[in-house]
């Protein structure tokens, strides 16, 4: 299970404590996260499931490359960080 944590800036909008979720891609992991926390979905991805323009996701120390399908690979020991971009404020 990957460990997923979220920017504190999300906390003023909705609860999103760090969590563990299974999946071999960022998409699979995030879908598992959204299944447990449905309101979180629209904060991170748009109507088509694309990562919002001013949200960043890192797998360990690498920013993901595929912001549309979220197909970057994830392994069980990975840490996933969801940040807001410095733009968009």
């Amino acid at each position, binding site marked *: 299970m990957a460990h997923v944590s979220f920017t504190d*800036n999300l906390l003023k*909008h909705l609860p999103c404590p760090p969590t563990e979720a299974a999946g071999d891609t960022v998409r699979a992991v995030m879908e598992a996260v959204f299944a447990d926390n449905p309101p979180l979905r629209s*904060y991170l991805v*748009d*109507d*088509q499931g694309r990562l*919002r323009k*001013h949200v960043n996701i890192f797998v360990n120390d690498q920013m993901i490359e595929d912001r549309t399908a979220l197909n970057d690979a994830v392994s069980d020991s990975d840490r996933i960080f969801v940040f807001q*971009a410095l733009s968009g404020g």
Partner: protein
Amino acid sequence: MTDTFYVASRKGLFTYRRSHGDWMAGAPAFLGEPVSAVLKDPRDDALYAALNLGHFGPKLHRSDDDGNSWTELAAPAFAAADPEDKDAPSVEQIWTIVPGGDEEEGVLWAGTIPGALWRSEDRGASWRLIESLWNREEREGWFGGGYDHPGVHSVLVDPRDSAKLTLGVSCGGVWKSDDHGETWRLTGKGLRSDYTPPEQAEDLNTQDPHRLAMCPSAPDTIWCQHHNGVFLSRDGGETFHEIRDIKPAVFGFAVAVHPSNPYTAYLVPGVKDECRVPVDARLVVNRTENGGKSWSAQGNGLPKSPSYDLIFRHGLDIDKTGDRLVMGSTTGNLWITENGGDDWRQLSAHLPPVAAVAFA
């Protein structure tokens, strides 16, 4: 008189209440967040606030205790399309929310960017895309006006028959439905554009009505502050005629019409589209009381020193009596008049940029 109004700003929602002759702002809601639209529904007193979070997208909240507590609702959202379609739509901003007819309990309409109309029948808990408009082939000819994508900013519900709707789209013209949005027709003959080739100047589908305002007691009268001037319809938006030679300028975004006198309307002029500031840096509100035959530029109480305020399309509102108007600017100024525009009073010079104002 309406003793409460709301200010949707770049950094929160402010509520002003009149007490002992003075207007006082309460603690802001959604402090730090862009508020793109606000509605106080007169049918059930629900208060709606649309947010356009810089990082986390458009959101919608409702308060049933006048802003003391809020519940997040599902914002309008497009259905998932083919993953290969890189241009598949996503709601970028809720631009306006209006109540349905008095007898339509729980019905709301929302206009968004990209240009779509949405209907809720459960006080905003869920939304349905009006596909009959979205699927019109003319929509491919729409384009953005001020934003990258076109948007629906004005939704007028005929108080005589709530099945009758009139939309203003920037840039996509004026659209009417007589059947709750089941079918649509493109109207607005008489509008003209000068930002398209001359032979397309009267093309209905590329007009940019910055804002439409319907007189509630005479709903066939619709005022239009258009990108290229000021237009008036006497047939419910089917056709318009242009009102020329308005001083100091015909450019602007906002328009308000008196609730019981369709001949009285208010505009806030700017120089022109390539210079969106008051003419000679002197902010005025233009008022006509004779259907546009003559106008007076009201400036009493507005800045005497150079001013560069712009009033966005939802930045001017008039109350049920027609005596009070509130106006908020892009530079965070807020004014009110309580005598139909003869005198204005500044309530704040320090607000965030104002997107919309709305009386309760």
